């Protein structure tokens, strides 16, 4: 009797759970899943001009071949990789260091934390406007420091060597808060006794990090690594707000190339093929990270 009642209750809970996730599932299906599947379909259609905007003529692999034969796609892809590597390395290392520092009590900690969290809630376009002013070589306050010493200073966004790294560092600055908060939460779950034992054993600061902190928060770090890799390729807003791909094509990333091919030049077929290839690449990278994660966590 009791079993039947429990079973009924469980079924009711299950139904409620389904109902509660239904809005998300519906929204996901309409706004994510359907566009993704449709995008894959379009990548096989001859839909590369305003005239052929509604065409469903089968193009085979033509759009994929065009995409991989376009030199700008490869340079944009290379820039995306450079952006991603700088972004992920900086955001993970700085995020970890700052979170460890924030985990200690010090005077003004709340104020400093708030300062670090502010960029995360600031609109990227607003960030772009402020940084373009700050780093303006002729009128900006940053280059004013160089002018004190008789130099004009770096051309932050007009130099092909600096434009992409500068934009990436600003993206890191804006994204740091999320990493700090997440690592900080993980750090606060590390039992205090472990630190005490490490101290009794005579472990130094670096040893405590290596043998206590890192093993304890490794799952969180790997989860963050996956999120950061995905976010690093979602850099369209950052690039548009700061450099718009310039100077020339020096900071043109693949997300900008895909957007322009689709929505500026109406080459929906080619743009979809580029998107599918890019998504496949990101999935492959994350699959590798996932394997590395499993092995590392096994060893720990």
């Amino acid at each position, binding site marked *: 009797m009791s079993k039947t009642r429990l079973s009924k209750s469980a079924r009711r809970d299950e139904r409620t759970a389904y109902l509660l996730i239904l809005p998300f599932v519906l929204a996901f299906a309409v706004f994510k899943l359907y566009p993704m599947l449709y995008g894959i379909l379009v990548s096989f259609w001859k839909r590369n*001009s305003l*005239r052929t*905007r509604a065409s469903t003529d089968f193009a085979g692999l033509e759009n994929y071949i065009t995409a991989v*034969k376009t030199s700008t796609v490869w340079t944009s892809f290379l820039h995306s990789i450079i952006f991603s590597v700088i972004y992920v390395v900086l955001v993970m290392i700085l995020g970890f260091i700052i979170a460890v520092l924030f985990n200690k009590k010090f005077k003004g900690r709340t104020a400093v934390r708030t300062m670090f969290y502010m960029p995360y809630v600031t609109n990227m376009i607003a960030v772009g406007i402020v940084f373009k002013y700050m780093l*303006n070589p002729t009128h900006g306050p940053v280059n004013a420091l160089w002018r004190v010493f008789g130099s004009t200073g770096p051309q932050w966004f007009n130099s092909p060597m600096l434009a992409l790294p500068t934009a990436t560092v600003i993206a890191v600055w804006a994204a740091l808060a999320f990493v700090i908060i997440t690592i900080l939460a993980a750090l606060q779950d590390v039992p205090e006794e472990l630190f005490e034992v490490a101290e009794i054993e005579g472990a130094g600061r670096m040893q405590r990090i290596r043998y206590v902190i890192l093993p304890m928060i490794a799952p969180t770090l790997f989860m963050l690594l996956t999120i950061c890799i995905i976010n690093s390729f979602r850099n369209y807003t950052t690039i548009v707000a700061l450099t718009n791909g*310039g100077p*020339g094509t020096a900071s043109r990333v693949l997300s900008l190339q895909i957007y322009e091919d689709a929505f500026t*030049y109406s080459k929906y077929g080619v743009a979809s093929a580029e998107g599918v290839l890019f998504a496949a690449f990101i999935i492959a990278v994350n699959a590798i990270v996932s394997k590395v994660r499993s092995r590392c966590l096994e060893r720990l």
Partner: protein
Amino acid sequence: MKKIALVAILALLIALPAFAGGSSEKSASDERVVTTVCRASYANEVWYNEMNKAFEEETGIHVIVQPTPGNDEDHDAKVNIDLTAGSKIDVIPSLGPRYYAARVEAGFFVPLRELVEGRGINADEIYGANLPVEEDGDYYALPSKIEAYCIFYNKDLFDKAGVPYPSTTEPWTWEDYKETAIALTDASAGVYGSFMNAENPWLIIATVQQEDPFYKEDGTCNFDTPLRREAIEYYYDMTKVSKCQMPVDEIMNENVSWNYYAMAGDHLAMYSQGNWFTRLLNSQEDYPRDWRYGIARTPAPEGYNNNIVSAAYNSINVNAEHPEEALEYVLWLADNQWKFEGGIPAYATMTEEDRQTAFGSIAEASDGQITVDDLYNCLVNNGMGAVQSDIIGTAADEYNRIANEELQAYFLDLQDLDTTMGNITRRVNEAIQSYE
């Protein structure tokens, strides 16, 4: 629990349509309306709103305008996306033949010949060569204004440098222009003799006037020509050797919209712009300045005599919800937009009355700095042929963007001219191949 979940779902279903709506502006069913789009910058312009108000008063048709946020390129991209998605906006404006041609080719517009002739109007006669007649003999828009290039200059800087004002009646060459710009440049005071935008057609302005084709006969890219190289080297010389033109890196660092420079005449002696600039120069409220301005003809390359001219078109969307009202609006705009905007009518010939209407208000608003004759002689009666400012053809948008990107890289000394030409040719050919 069941009830709560049910209520939650119903609430969600009721709320969802609120996010799916378009414009909240609605009209009564008996009211005649016409819908159109405009650039965000137009939406707040006095002339644009007064123009629509005048149309409403004259016809009783209410104009519903949907401004598109962003810059001009964003506007055209968004309009194309909207049209691709089956937009029902009635009247679609196209500034310049590049977008117009692409939209006609895509089949977005209604053919107008029969409809216009049905009203007893002979558009061929009225608009002459300005009527965009297609290969099928029909036209899909009526032109509402002409935009002609010219030079504006700061009279105070000319006086200070002791340089005579350029003539409004005599032709001059780009070499004359450069010499004048050098004489006006005062590096110690931060004054440049010339300002030309760091984009097409200014980066290659002479070659546009020379009508050097952008495509080869086989449809591939024809950017790398001796004339084009000469035009690019001219701009390079102006910025890097003679240093009489604001350099590209400075323009890019300033990172401002083109209309900002209407206020920068205190350190820019001559501007290569067009008649659209008078609206800014005469608007002290929006573009305050404390210097007097003058107007001169566009210089031409030695042995050529063409001015760069563009046009604005209004078309009726094939999916228009109010086609009759749309036709009335398009016809009215062709006759009246230039009067409100301060532009040049697209008529085949200008009567004395048109001339006074087009230029009288501009001359008056300039407080005597320029006269009706100055405007007429520099913009219309200059004895120059007319060539289009736009690249028109396959993948023209992308062609234009690629040329801008690569030329800017050249002017920033990031690559040499051979590399620049090679990159443009390769990338444009790739774009042409990927376009259907």
